[in-house]
């Protein structure tokens, strides 16, 4: 039988002091000491590949890495909460969409001073460097990149007797009408316009290829300009839905993944689809159009070009990592191991490409025989290289991007539903942009 000992005042004070000391030491954990591990945060992608590459890094450098990952869907919110809570993070994956927000808040720091990272710039696509740059400072080193592709279902075009894929949006509309008239597809064109994170990439690809911009060099809204490409792009989409009936009105509920599934089932002839999906589209185990999904240059609008939108994920560095020169050096080593060369080659980028088909922003990798061979299985490597060179960074990435996109996305949808004219929708979008810019 155990006896109950009353808690004396002395023991209570001793216990409290011990607890306080433990809490204080935990609080100190957010400041790195000289031989502290490097804290690395990613979203939950290619987790095993990341872990094995970390293990190789630890073996090579004798440094310790504390790795954690969070699902993509909650990553931004989770990381912001961690930043605010002063959690220990040294380097992390960052999306170009969050760069201004995180840089303005001081959660990530420029890396221009680290030559070990900057030396790779000469081998990286310009839009990638632009996407990692904010107010003239570079905030990271490339993790992976991709662009919005225009993909055609070659088998359907052949059935329709179309010999050459379209090179302009006018040709896309004509060919789509022909395919529809032959009963080959109810809605030959696929564009996902559901309110989700992907929608800005779809919009940007359309606007850029029509020669337009959402904002000018000064960051002011130009999307409402009637002669600008944005109005032209949205008008074309609206016409495809309501006049040609070649784009389903359900595009407003079609997200990227649902769109992919629809394209995989062979229901469409033309699709705006992220380039990395080519691998899935040409995989016989997953696709009914395997071997027939081809990337062609983004069609151009009347006053546009073959430009598309590219996006970027990169390794960012926190103020914690830069608190001491020694810890910064350790962190830079890890960033270079992943984003630059490890053992003399872009090992992690190659692993990622082979593992999940993730695109790379390193130009020299297009000439790597191993990569070219891997690409050949599902895509035309020269076409991919050509289109990637025409990719541009998004011009709406600002600290107020999320709030603006809430209104902008709804405005585009209202135009597609016929509740607003394209001009009125884009004016609404531009007004919100101007209001938020003033508040910032």
């Amino acid at each position, binding site marked *: 039988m155990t006896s109950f000992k009353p808690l004396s005042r002395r023991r209570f004070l001793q216990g409290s002091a011990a607890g306080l000391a433990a809490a204080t030491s935990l609080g100190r954990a957010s400041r790195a000491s000289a031989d502290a591990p490097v804290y690395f945060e990613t979203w939950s992608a290619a987790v095993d590949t990341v872990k094995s590459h970390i293990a190789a890094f630890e073996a090579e450098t004798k440094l310790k890495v504390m790795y954690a990952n969070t699902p993509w869907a909650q990553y931004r919110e989770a990381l912001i909460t961690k930043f*605010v809570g002063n959690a220990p993070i040294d380097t992390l994956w960052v999306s170009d969409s969050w760069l201004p927000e995180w840089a303005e808040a001081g959660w990530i720091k420029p890396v221009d001073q680290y030559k070990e990272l900057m030396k790779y710039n000469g081998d990286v696509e310009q839009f990638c460097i632009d996407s990692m740059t904010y107010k003239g400072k570079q905030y990271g080193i490339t993790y992976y990149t991709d662009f919005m592709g225009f993909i055609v279902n070659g088998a359907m075009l052949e059935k329709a007797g179309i010999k050459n894929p379209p090179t302009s949006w006018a040709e896309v509309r004509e060919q789509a009408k022909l395919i529809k008239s032959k009963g080959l597809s109810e809605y030959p064109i696929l564009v996902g316009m559901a309110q989700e994170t992907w929608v800005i990439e779809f919009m940007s690809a359309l606007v850029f290829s029509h020669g337009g911009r959402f904002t000018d060099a000064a960051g002011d809204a130009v999307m409402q300009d009637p002669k600008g490409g944005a109005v032209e792009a949205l008008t074309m989409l609206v016409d495809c839905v309501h006049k040609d009936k070649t784009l*389903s009105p359900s*595009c407003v*509920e079609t997200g990227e993944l649902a769109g992919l599934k629809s394209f995989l089932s062979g229901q469409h002839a033309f699709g705006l689809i992220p380039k990395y999906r080519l691998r899935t589209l040409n995989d016989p185990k997953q696709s009914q159009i395997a071997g027939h999904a081809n990337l062609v240059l983004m069609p151009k609008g009347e006053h546009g070009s073959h430009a598309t939108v590219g996006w970027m994920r990169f390794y960012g560095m926190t103020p914690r990592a830069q608190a001491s020169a020694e810890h910064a050096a350790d962190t830079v080593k890890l960033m270079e191991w992943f984003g630059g060369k490890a053992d003399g080659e872009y090992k992690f980028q190659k692993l990622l490409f082979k593992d999940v088909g993730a695109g790379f922003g390193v130009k020299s990798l297009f000439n790597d025989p191993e990569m070219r061979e891997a690409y050949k299985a599902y895509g035309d490597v020269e076409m991919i290289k050509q289109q990637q060179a025409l990719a541009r960074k998004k011009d709406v990435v600002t600290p107020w991007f999320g709030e603006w996109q809430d209104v902008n996305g*709804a405005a585009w949808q*209202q135009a597609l539903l016929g509740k607003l004219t394209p001009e009125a929708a884009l004016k609404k979008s531009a007004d919100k942009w101007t209001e938020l810019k003033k508040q910032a």
Partner: protein
Amino acid sequence: MTTSAISARRSRVMPRLSYDERSAYLFVAPLAAVLFIVAVFPIVYSFYISLYNLKLTRPRSVPFVGLANYETVLTSPTFWASVERTAVFTVIAVVATSVIALLVALLLNEDFPGRRVLSALLLIPWAIPYVANALMWKWIYDSNFGALNGLLFQLGFIDNYMVWLGDAKKTLALIAQAFVWKEVPLAAILLLVGLKTIPADLYAAAKVDGANVIQRFFHVTLPGLQSSFALVFIYEAMMAIRHFDLFFILTEGGPGNASDVVAWRIYVETFRNLSFGTGAAMSYILALATLALAYAVIRAMAQRI
């Protein structure tokens, strides 16, 4: 003043607790502490946050703004448009749930072979988690490969696949339908319990007076179910007003703003825009509105019963 005088005065103000009372407080204390941490503190703290312009992306500047967040919300046309949509959704959801649940309860109140099996089957939607329910309906409603289009097409009711959630005119009603499917079992059980409490004598007396089935339903059953209906109405209205899962998974507030209800707006403001101040203010307004509605219903019912 002597020590004994102080002690005597203290015992007048705070009478000494008996051993049993002290033991009772001791046993209740851990639970009270947990409740304070997980319920009372967050409620009070969220009100405190609602008085500040707290935006996580601007961590260095958190000014005290008093009731300005409430003013911002209450003068926003976007907020009032979402209130209107919430009201429409709630009315559709509560009326449909109540009517269908009543029919189900009346059916289950009868004796027939297989009644128990049917009762168990009817509980399935209730047992399905909200998120799973939403994902299921997302697949059913999908315009490109959804089960609803497939079924209607195969039965020959439609020539082409229809647009469901993407049609702004149908969106709220379709989400309400998914909500009703999940909520009917619980409402039916509550009404069934009410039906069981109506004395059989009343029906017998009504029969003796010559009342037919319909007259018995309107003059005996419905009045007898008043308190059960009040419970169903309050519970379902609160669930509908605060409902978020279906809006998040099915439409994310779209298309356009067709399903941009208050709960969705709170999510966008708090977790997408990371504006915790206005998000908390909006949450308080929603909570107070729900509370006021429940209070009004209870008062009205109390006066009638």
